C-alpha cells in the first residue's frame, strides 16, 4: 500500500465552539485552524481548561447536550462533517477516526473479556466472521507488543496492568486502520517507564500504518518525542503553531516562553536559575479580556496594541513557513525577557543530620482465608511495602524519594508521620526513635517538628472550614500562639509568604483553584514551624505553570525556615531541579542513593538508567539514549527472590540476579548502588542524557 503523504485527512477552519449552560454562552474554543496530512502527528498542548479536549470531541462530532459549533467547519477527507447524517458519523467514528482516552480502565468494559471487546469492533463495523475477527485482534495485539497475546485475549481488563490496558485500547483503536487517531492525554495516568513504552509504540504505529495523529497533552517534553507539528493553546485559542523544531528552538509567543520557563530544564537549578511561574491565573471563559487573552498575565503587555481588537495569527517567516503566532508584538519580544528576570537565590546552608533511617522495614499483614490457604497453612501473607531502607537527611537539605507507583514511597511517608509504624528497624528524628511511635503517642513537639504536604489538591483541605481556620488551627494546636488576634496575624503573614491575597483568609476551599489549595496545604504544613516536612507528590496533580509557582512557594518556605524537605515524586526532572540528594526506590527497596549529580551520571543502577531515559525532556539540544523497559511491576505480595528489578532489567547478568539479593556497593562516600554488576562496569556505561557543549549552554542561557 502506498501512502500519499500529501493527502489532507482533517481540515478545521475557523472553528468556534461554545457550551450553552444556564449562565449563558461559554465560548470554549475560538477561531481554531488545523490541517492534518496523512501520516502526520500534530500535538495540541496547553493547560487544563484551554479547550484542547473540546477540539477532539468536536472532531468526533460529540459535544453532549450543551455544546455546539457556532462558526467554522470540520472537514474530514474533504467532507464537511456538520452536513453528515447521524448514521454517516456513526460509521466514521471508530472506523475512520478513533480515539484513545486518558483512563484506559474507564475505556474498557470491565465485565467483558478483551477478546469480546476487540472482536466486537470488527464484527460491528465490517461484519467480519468471529473467527477472522479473533485472528486479526490477536495480530493487532502482537503489533502493540503485548507479550503472550493469546492469554491476554481471555483476560478481563482488571486482570492486566495499566500499561497493557492502554496498549489494548490503542490496538482496538487501530483495528479498523483508521485514518485519524485522536489521543487525549494517553499516558498521563501511567508511570514514566510505562509511558516511555507507549510513546515509542505510538510513534512506531503511525509510521507503520500511515495513521495521522492528533496528540493532546500538557507535557511539552512528550510533544517533542511524538509530534511533527504542535499547536499551543491558551484559553480557547491557539496562540502559536509551527513545526516542533521551530517552536522549541524559536518560540515567539510570551505564553510559550512562559511555559518553557515553568518546566524544570536541565540547565535550571533551584538556586541559580529558579523556575519562573507565569503570574496570574487562566481567565474564566466569560471573563476573557478584550484583545489578547494572555494580556493580563503577559510581562510585555502594551496598552492599545494588546487590548485592541481581536488579534489574528501572523506568520513569522523563517525556516518553517507555517510557524504562526497570535501576538501583535512578537517581533519585539525575546525569549530571554522572561528568563533574564530570574533572580538567583541563595542556597540553604545544610546543618547536622536531622533524620536517620536505618534498616527500616514495613510489612503489611494480610490474612488469606481462601480454601487453598487453609489447606497449605499459609494463611498469613505479607505485603512487603518497604525493605531495608537506609538514608540520612541533614537540616535544610532536600532529599527526594523517587519511584513509580507501588514502590512504597507513600508507605514510607506514612511511617515517618506516624500513621503507620515500622515492622523492623529504626527511624530517628534528632536521635529519637520514632519508627514504632504511632501518631497518638507522639508529643506535641514531635508532631509539630514533622509535618506533611499531601498530593491531591481537592482532598488536602477540609471543604467545610475556611482557609484561615485551617491554618490557624495548626498554630493554636502547636501552642505557637493562643490569642485569636495573634493567631490571625500569623495566618495572614503565612498567606503573604505563599503569595495568596489576604482576603483568602475567609475563603472556602471550593472557592480556590487547585494551585491555591496546594499552597494553603503548604502553609498549613509550615504553620507549626516544623524541622522536617514531607511532601508527597505535591505538584503532580497540577498544571505546568501552576506547578512551577507552587514549587517556588515550597522552596521559599523551605528557605525561610531552613527546613529539611523530603520530596516524594515520580518526576525525575522536578527532582533534579530541587533536590540535593536522591533516593531511587523500586518495589520497596532502595536501588540507588546519592547526591543529585551522582545519581544523574554514571555509574547508574540499571533502573535509574531506565528512569532517566523515560523522562521526557522539552529541549531540542539534549540527546537521550532510549531504554524501554519490558514487563510490568511485580506484585509486592510476591516480589522476586533476588534483585527486585531482575524481572525487567535489561542488564541482567544471569541467575544470580534472580536468586540473590544484590550487594550494596559504594561508588562514593554516600553514593550507594544495589546491584550485582561490578562498579567498574556500571561506571563505563554511556551517560543517558547528553547535554550540549558547555559554551553553547552558557550562550543560550544568557
Amino acid at each position, binding site marked *: 500500500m502506498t501512502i500519499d503523504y500529501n493527502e489532507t485527512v482533517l481540515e478545521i477552519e475557523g472553528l468556534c465552539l461554545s457550551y450553552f449552560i444556564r449562565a449563558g454562552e461559554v465560548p470554549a474554543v475560538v477561531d481554531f485552524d488545523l490541517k492534518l496530512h496523512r501520516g502526520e502527528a500534530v500535538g495540541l498542548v496547553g493547560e487544563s481548561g484551554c479547550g484542547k479536549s473540546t477540539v477532539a470531541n468536536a472532531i468526533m462530532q460529540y459535544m453532549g447536550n450543551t455544546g455546539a459549533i457556532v462558526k467554522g467547519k470540520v472537514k474530514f477527507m474533504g467532507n464537511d462533517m456538520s452536513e453528515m447524517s447521524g448514521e454517516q458519523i456513526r460509521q466514521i467514528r471508530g472506523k475512520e477516526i478513533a480515539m484513545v482516552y486518558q483512563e484506559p480502565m474507564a475505556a474498557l468494559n470491565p465485565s467483558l473479556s478483551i477478546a469480546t471487546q476487540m472482536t466486537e469492533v470488527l464484527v460491528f463495523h465490517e461484519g467480519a466472521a468471529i473467527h477472522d475477527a479473533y485472528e486479526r485482534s490477536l495480530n493487532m495485539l502482537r503489533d502493540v507488543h503485548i507479550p503472550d497475546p493469546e492469554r491476554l485475549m481471555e483476560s478481563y481488563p482488571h486482570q492486566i496492568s495499566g500499561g497493557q490496558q492502554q496498549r489494548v485500547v490503542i490496538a482496538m483503536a487501530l483495528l479498523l486502520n483508521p485514518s485519524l487517531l485522536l489521543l487525549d492525554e494517553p499516558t498521563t495516568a501511567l508511570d514514566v517507564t510505562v509511558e516511555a513504552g507507549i510513546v515509542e509504540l505510538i510513534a512506531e504505529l503511525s509510521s507503520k500504518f500511515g495513521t495521522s495523529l492528533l496528540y493532546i497533552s500538557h507535557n511539552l517534553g512528550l510533544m517533542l518525542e511524538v509530534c511533527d507539528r504542535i499547536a499551543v493553546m491558551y484559553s480557547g485559542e491557539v496562540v502559536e503553531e509551527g513545526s516542533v523544531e521551530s517552536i522549541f528552538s524559536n518560540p515567539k509567543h510570551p505564553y510559550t516562553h512562559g511555559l518553557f520557563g515553568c518546566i524544570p530544564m536541565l540547565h535550571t537549578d533551584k538556586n541559580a536559575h529558579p523556575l519562573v511561574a507565569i503570574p496570574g491565573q487562566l481567565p474564566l471563559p466569560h471573563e476573557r479580556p478584550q484583545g489578547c487573552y494572555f494580556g493580563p498575565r503577559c510581562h510585555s503587555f502594551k496598552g492599545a496594541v494588546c487590548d485592541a481588537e481581536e488579534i489574528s495569527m501572523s506568520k513569522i517567516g523563517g525556516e518553517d513557513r507555517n510557524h504562526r503566532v497570535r501576538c501583535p508584538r512578537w517581533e519585539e519580544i525575546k525569549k530571554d525577557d522572561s528568563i533574564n528576570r530570574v533572580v538567583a537565590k541563595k542556597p540553604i546552608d545544610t546543618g547536622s543530620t536531622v533524620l536517620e533511617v536505618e534498616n527500616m522495614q514495613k510489612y503489611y499483614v494480610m490474612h488469606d482465608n481462601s480454601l487453598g490457604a487453609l489447606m497449605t497453612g499459609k494463611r498469613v501473607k505479607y505485603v512487603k511495602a518497604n525493605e531495608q531502607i537506609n538514608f540520612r537527611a541533614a537540616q535544610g537539605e532536600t532529599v527526594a524519594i523517587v519511584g513509580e507507583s507501588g514502590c512504597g514511597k507513600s508507605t514510607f511517608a506514612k511511617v515517618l508521620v506516624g*500513621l503507620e509504624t515500622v515492622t523492623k528497624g529504626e527511624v530517628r528524628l534528632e536521635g529519637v526513635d520514632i519508627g514504632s511511635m504511632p501518631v497518638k503517642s507522639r508529643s506535641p513537639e514531635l508532631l509539630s517538628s514533622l509535618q506533611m504536604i499531601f498530593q491531591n489538591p481537592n482532598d*488536602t*483541605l477540609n*471543604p*467545610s472550614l475556611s482557609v484561615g481556620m485551617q491554618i490557624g*488551627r495548626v498554630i493554636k*494546636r502547636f501552642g505557637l500562639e493562643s490569642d485569636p488576634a495573634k493567631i490571625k496575624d500569623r495566618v495572614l503573614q503565612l498567606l503573604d509568604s505563599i503569595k495568596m491575597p489576604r*482576603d483568602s483568609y*475567609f475563603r*472556602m476551599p471550593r472557592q480556590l483553584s487547585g494551585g491555591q489549595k496546594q499552597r494553603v496545604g503548604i502553609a498549613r504544613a509550615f504553620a507549626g514551624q516544623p524541622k522536617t516536612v514531607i511532601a508527597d507528590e505535591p505538584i503532580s496533580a497540577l498544571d505546568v505553570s501552576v506547578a512551577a509557582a507552587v514549587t517556588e512557594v515550597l522552596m521559599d518556605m523551605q528557605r525561610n525556615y531552613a527546613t529539611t524537605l523530603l520530596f516524594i515524586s515520580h518526576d525525575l526532572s522536578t527532582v533534579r531541579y530541587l533536590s540535593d540528594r536522591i533516593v531511587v526506590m523500586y518495589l520497596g527497596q532502595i536501588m540507588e542513593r546519592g547526591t543529585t549529580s551522582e545519581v544523574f551520571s554514571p555509574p547508574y543502577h540499571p533502573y535509574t538508567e531506565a528512569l532517566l531515559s523515560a523522562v521526557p525532556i522539552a529541549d531540542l539540544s539534549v540527546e537521550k539514549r532510549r531504554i524501554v523497559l519490558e514487563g510490568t511491576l511485580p506484585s509486592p505480595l510476591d516480589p522476586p527472590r533476588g534483585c527486585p528489578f531482575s524481572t525487567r532489567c535489561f542488564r541482567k547478568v544471569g541467575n544470580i540476579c534472580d536468586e540473590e539479593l544484590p550487594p550494596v556497593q559504594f561508588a562514593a562516600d554516600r553514593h550507594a548502588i544495589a546491584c550485582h554488576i561490578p562498579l567498574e562496569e556500571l561506571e563505563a556505561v554511556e551517560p543517558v542524557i547528553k547535554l550540549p557543549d558547555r559554551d553553547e549552554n552558557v550562550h543560550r542561557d544568557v
Partner: protein
Amino acid sequence: MKKNNENLSGKIVPASSVGLAFKRAVKSFALLKESRIGMAGLFLVVLWILIAIFAPLIAPYDPLANFQPFLKPGMVDSKGNLFLLGTDQIGRDMLSRLIFGARRVLIFAPLATFSAYLVGIVMGLLAGYRGGWWDIVLTRVGDVILSFPPIVLYIVIIGVVGATAINIVAAIILASGPGIMRIVRGLVLDIRTREYIAAAETRGESDLFIMLVEILPNARGPLIVDACLRLGFVTITIGILAFLGLGLPPPEPDWGGMVNEARVFALAFPHMTLFPCIAISSLVLGFNLLADGLREISLRD
C-alpha cells in the same frame, strides 16, 4: 462578598466567621429556588408550619368543643355555625381539629427524627472512624434491630411501656437509629480516607475533634437530604401509631387518631377519614419533595 473584604483590610471581627457561615447557609438555601419540586415541597411544609403556629387565630372553633355530630362538609348546624369540613362523630369541627392536629405532628416528628439522628450520628461516627470492635458491635446490634419489621417493633415497645410522648420518641429512635447509623458509617468510611483527615491526625487532633469537626460537617449534604425524607417517614409512623391506638392519648386532636376514631363511619361519612389522610399525605409529600429538591441542588453544585 465585598463587605467581608472591607472587614479584613481594617480590623478583625471575631463574629464574622459565624456570620459568614450563616450567610452561606442562607445562600445555599436560596439555591432551592432553582428546583421547582423543591419549592413545591417547601411551600407545603411552610404552609403546615404556619398553620400550626397560628392555629388559635385560624381555627374557626375550639377543637374540643362539641357541636352537632355527623355534619357533612359545608353544612350549617341549628345555631347557624358553618362547618367547612363538617364535624365528627361527637360533633367537633373537623377543620379546627386538623389545624390543631398539625401542632402535634410538627412537634413530635422533628423531635423524634432529630433525636434519632443524634443517636445514629454518634453510633455511625464511632463505628466508621474507630472501626474494629466498635464497628463490629455497633453494626451487629443495628443489624439485629433492622431485622425486625419496624411496625412490630413499635407495637411491642409501646404496647409494653405504654403510649407516652417520651416512649413514642424512644421507639422511633430505636427503630430508625440503626438505619441512620448505616448511612453515617458509610459516609465516614469514605471521608476518613481523605488527606485532610490524615493532616488532622498528623497534628495529633483527638478522635472527638476529628469526628465532629473534620468528618461530620463534610457528611452533611447527604444527611440533610436523608433527614428530610426521614421526617416524612416519621410523620407517617406517628400517624400509624395513632391509628393503631398507640398514639398520644385523646382528646387532643391527632391526625392518625382522627382516622382511627372515624374508621367505622368511613363508608357513610368518608369526609371524617379523608381529610386527616389528606393532611398527613400533604405534609409527607412536602417533606419528600423538599428532599428531592435538596438532592437536585446538591448534585448540581
